Structure formats: structure tokens, C-alpha cells
């Protein structure tokens, strides 16, 4: 082995080595063999450990938010109860998390209450509702609100920013003054004014988010537009007589999509946070409907008696934040890789 390696190093050139290799293909570039931009982003993203962790977390939560509530027979609004021999209603109030089989395995005993055979992974709340079902149902509501509003915001913000940046001049000036004023109104003030006009509930949360989150997106879209507008290929396309609409949608939109998607990944957790906080305060989701925010509030109200109740929604909330932030970071790095990461 060693001999071989050594032999390789002091390879003695022989006469027949000195011949021209002649006409070979030397024009193809082996290093930068055509790798499309998006493929590069894709590869870079999946090489990032954190981004993958984020993606796994979000996938799991979305999976449970969709299928979790179906995994047992309890409805999210239903109070778990049955009638005993004396025909008295027995309600599963405030039962801490339990899996009878595991309990038996560990202690050799069975639960000695009326719900000895029931599995409550997260326990039940003070009214006797199954927290597993409620947690995932709440996560579903929160995610839905976030996705829907952010996608609408993305469309509004992008159109606004792209139009403002593309036309520039007076149009841009007026549109930016408007953004400035809109941006100077704290979100809470918008919520409070909305509360005058709208009933509390999911609608209020959605409208409040719609009115605030588009601004960030429009700023990014505008900045990207300004950056790209002066680049050669857009100029070229303009000299060729392309119309505004064509340039915006065919030339510029594909190039702004990256930073916008990154912003979306950061806006979704903001939306979830806002929803949770509005619901906690009492202007968001109204009982018996539930979301991550109302579940935390419920948990807080029962914290001295049922301390385990607050944990699942908090953990789900934190994991959602973590997951989306990781994905956002990963995307940002994948879209604009620094040299040292190459």
C-alpha cells in the first residue's frame, strides 16, 4: 500500500509519455457544468442542517394539525363522559396525561378511576375535553389563519411594491408616502379600531393581519424591483418593445420570488404570534372554537390546578416559531450564499 503510494509520487516519465494528447474536447467547463439556479438553491438548502430540522418540525406539525384530531374518537368541542351503572354522568374533568398500557408497564397497576381504560396523551381540560384533539385542532386553526393571510398579504404587498418600484417617479412617491403613513400606525391601534367595526373572532384577526403584514412584503418587492430594473436583461427586453405588464410578470417577478418567499417564512410566525396574542387577550378566536392562543389562555387560567394543560400549546407555538425561522434563515442563505459556504 505504502509502496504503491510512494511509487505514484516518484513516477518516472517514460519516453512514450511525451506525446501530444491532441484534439480533445477542452471547451466544456467541468466545474460549472450547467446547474440551474433553483437546483443550486435546493441543494444548498438541504445541506443546511438547521433548515432541514425546521422543515421536519413544520411538516410534523402540519401532519398532526391535519390528522391529529382524527386519531381518537373525541371531538375538539366534545366533553368526554359516559353514564355509569347508576345512570349518573361521569365527566373526564382535569385528567392528567395518561396511557394506561404504559402506566401498567411501569407501575404494574391500573388507574383506579372511572377512565382507567381511556388514553389521553395530553390529558383533559377542566371541562373534560380531550387536549390532544384540541391542541391539534387549535394548531390547525392558527396555521390556517397564518397561511391564508400571509398568502393574500404576499399578493397585495408584491403587487404594490412591484408597481411602485417599476413606475418610479411620481407614482412611486405617492405610493411610498401612503406606505409611510400606514407603517406609522401601530398594529394594536389597527386592531382596536377594527374591534369597533367587527365582531370578535377569526375575521378580526385575519383582517388585522391583512392590514399590517403587506407593508413589509411591498418594501422588499420594491427594493428588489429597483435593483433589477436597471439590469441589462430588463433594459434589453424594454428596447425590444416589451410592454410593462410583460416585463413585470415575465422578467422581474421570477427574480423577486426568492426574497419574497423568505419574507413569507418570517411573516408566518409573526402572524401566528399575533393570532395567539389577540386570542389570549380576548379579541381573537372565541370559545368553544380554539386556536393556539386560546389554548394557552385556557391553560393559564387553570395553571394552579391543572399545570400540565398549558404545555402542549406552548410547545407547539414555540416549535412553529422555531421551524419557520429556521426555514426562513435557510432559504435566505440558500438564495444568497456567502463565498465561504460554497
Amino acid at each position, binding site marked *: 500500500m505504502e509502496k504503491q503510494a510512494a511509487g505514484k509520487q516518484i513516477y518516472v516519465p517514460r519516453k512514450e509519455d511525451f506525446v501530444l494528447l491532441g484534439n480533445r474536447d477542452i471547451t466544456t467547463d467541468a466545474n460549472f457544468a450547467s446547474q440551474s439556479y433553483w437546483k443550486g438553491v435546493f441543494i444548498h438548502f438541504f445541506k443546511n442542517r438547521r433548515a432541514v430540522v425546521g422543515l421536519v418540525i413544520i411538516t410534523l406539525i402540519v401532519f398532526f394539525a391535519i390528522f391529529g384530531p382524527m386519531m381518537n374518537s373525541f371531538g375538539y368541542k366534545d366533553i368526554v363522559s359516559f353514564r355509569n351503572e347508576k345512570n349518573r354522568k361521569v365527566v373526564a374533568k382535569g385528567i392528567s396525561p395518561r396511557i394506561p398500557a404504559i402506566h401498567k408497564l411501569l407501575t404494574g397497576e391500573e388507574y383506579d378511576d372511572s377512565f382507567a381504560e381511556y388514553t389521553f396523551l395530553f390529558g383533559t381540560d377542566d371541562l373534560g375535553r380531550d387536549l390532544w384533539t384540541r391542541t391539534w385542532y387549535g394548531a390547525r386553526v392558527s396555521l390556517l389563519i397564518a397561511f391564508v393571510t400571509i398568502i393574500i398579504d404576499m399578493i397585495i404587498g408584491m403587487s404594490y411594491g412591484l408597481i411602485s418600484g417599476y413606475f418610479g417617479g411620481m407614482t412611486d412617491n405617492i405610493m411610498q408616502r401612503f406606505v409611510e403613513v400606514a407603517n406609522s400606525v401601530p398594529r394594536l391601534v389597527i*386592531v382596536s*379600531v377594527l374591534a369597533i367595526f367587527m365582531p370578535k373572532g377569526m375575521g378580526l384577526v385575519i383582517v388585522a393581519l391583512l392590514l399590517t403584514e403587506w407593508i413589509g412584503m411591498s418594501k422588499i418587492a420594491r427594493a428588489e424591483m429597483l435593483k433589477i430594473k436597471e439590469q441589462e436583461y430588463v433594459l434589453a427586453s424594454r428596447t425590444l418593445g416589451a410592454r410593462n405588464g410583460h416585463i413585470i410578470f415575465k422578467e422581474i417577478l421570477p427574480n423577486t420570488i426568492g426574497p419574497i418567499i423568505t419574507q413569507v417564512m418570517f411573516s408566518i410566525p409573526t402572524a401566528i404570534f399575533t393570532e395567539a396574542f389577540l386570542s389570549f387577550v380576548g379579541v381573537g378566536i372565541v370559545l368553544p372554537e380554539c386556536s393556539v392562543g386560546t389554548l394557552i389562555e385556557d391553560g393559564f387560567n387553570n395553571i394552579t390546578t391543572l399545570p400540565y394543560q398549558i404545555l402542549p400549546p406552548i410547545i407547539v407555538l414555540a416549535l412553529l416559531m422555531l421551524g419557520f425561522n429556521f426555514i426562513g434563515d435557510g432559504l435566505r442563505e440558500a438564495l444568497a450564499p456567502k463565498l465561504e459556504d460554497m
Partner: protein
Amino acid sequence: MLKYVVKRIGMALITLLIIVFLLFILVRIMPGNPFPSERMSAEQIANKRAEMGLDDPILTQFARYMGNLLQGDFGKGTSLYNGAPIKTVLSTCISNSFRIGGIAILLGTAVGLLLGIVAALNRGRFMDGFCTVFSIIGVCVPSYVFLIFLQYNFSFKIPFFPYFFDPSRFLFSSVMPSVSLSLFTMSTIARFTRNEMVEVFDSDYVRLAESKGMYGRRLVTKHVLRNALIPIVTVLAPLVVDLLTGALVVEKIYGINGIGKLMVDAIAGEGIDYNYVLALGILYSALYIGIMLVVDILYGVLDPRIRVAAKGEEA
């Protein structure tokens, strides 16, 4: 520089005026009865409306409201606090919120900066990792969750701190809400400081300074810190606004009579108190715009690129 400041102040005032006007209009055209809790006959209501000037043209009403506002008079609440003057209620609440928020800002900024700097100087080592994990937790968990956690452990399980806010023991009972409020600021600033500093460390001008022979503490204080800290002012601004005003849930949980709780009472209670909504809306907007203004000016003072450019092009 002066011109720049005056221009900024002017812009801020105009923006604020527009917002106040919009708020006023929106609150005045609200649907339904402004006197929800009282049962009055149609005639009484009409009298009351006339007495409050609600039948005048909207611009007249606005002018009158602004006139009162400039004298510090916000009017009276329609349902909260039995119609006590809003000004009195506000002043107590503001003082509570600002004191707790202020402590949180100082704590968050100081510790955040320190953590960020230490992390950047020990890039890739233990402290850097610690700072990253810390700031991830701080950003992912809302402040009220921290408060709930603290309250459960240190007021309920181990009854050391008061379970609810107690104005007579202000500092002592501010510990838990201030600490939980500061965590978000702390982690945001730590993360930002670290990233800014790392970026500056990799910049060409630090390379040039090193090639001059600068190293160690001198390099950090003269070239790195200054350049890294200027942008931090901009992230600090929204954080300050959030803390001074957005401690909503924390105030509600800990029973602090602050403006956040006041806002919750005004919108989330049985009836909505329009006058409080208006007054708080103005207060929040003014604070927000005011702090943004201060940051803008501060940024100008700190960054010669803006300060000197504003003096007029010399080059």
C-alpha cells in the same frame, strides 16, 4: 444637520396629524350607540348627543377635539372607570407601563449587547453557540409565556415574588414582568449585534486596519464596535415601542394597571369604550412616531454618511 432634523420633525408631525384625523373619523362614524351601558330614551340620547356636540359637522368636532387635546384633555370615557377623565387614568397607566417597560429595555439592551459582543469575539466557540441557542429561545417563546412560567414557579410553587403586581412594592413586583419582557429584546439584540459584528469583522476596512497593525481591543473599539452598533439603533426602535406599549398580555396576566391592560379593557370587555380607543390610539401612534423620529435623528448623529450628507455636498 439642523435642516435634516427640522424636516424629519415636520414629516412626523404631519403623519401624526393624518393618523389622528383618520382615527377620529373612524371612531366617530362607528356603528351603533355610543352610550351602550345606559338605558336612555331617544329624547335623552338626542339631548346628550347635542350636549356632547356629536351633531356638529365632523370637522368642527375634530377642531374642538384637537383644541382640547393640545391642552392635554382627552375627554371622558363612555363606559370605563365611570366616566372619570381619561387624562387622570392615562397618567397612572403610562407611568406604570413606562417604568416596567423602561427596566425591561435597559436590561434587555445591556445584556443583549454584552451577549452579542461576547459571542462575536468568540466566534464558533461555546459562547457563540450559547448566544445562538439563547436568542432562538427568546424569539420563539412569547414574553407572556415566560411570565406564566415565572409566576407559576416563583409566586405559586415557591411564594417569593408577589403573584400579582403590587404598586406599593414597585421594584420588587416589577422583577418578573420586566425580566420576561426583556427576553425578546435581549435575544433580538444579541443576535443582531453578533451578526453585525461578524460582518464588520469580515469587512475590507477592518482588513485595512489590521494591515495597518491594529489588533485586539483597539481594533474592536475603534473600528468594529462603532460600525456594528449604529445599525442596532434601528432594531432597537420597534423593540422599544413594543415594550412601552405592547406589554398587553403581560400586564393583563400580572394585573398591572398599564396602558396595555387599559387597551384590553377598552376593546375586549363587554362594551367598547370609544373614547379610550381614540385616546389610546393617539397615544400609541404618537409614541411610535416619536420613537421612530428619535431613532432617525440619532442615526443621523451617529452615522457620518447621513450627518455630513445632510450638511450639503462638499465633495
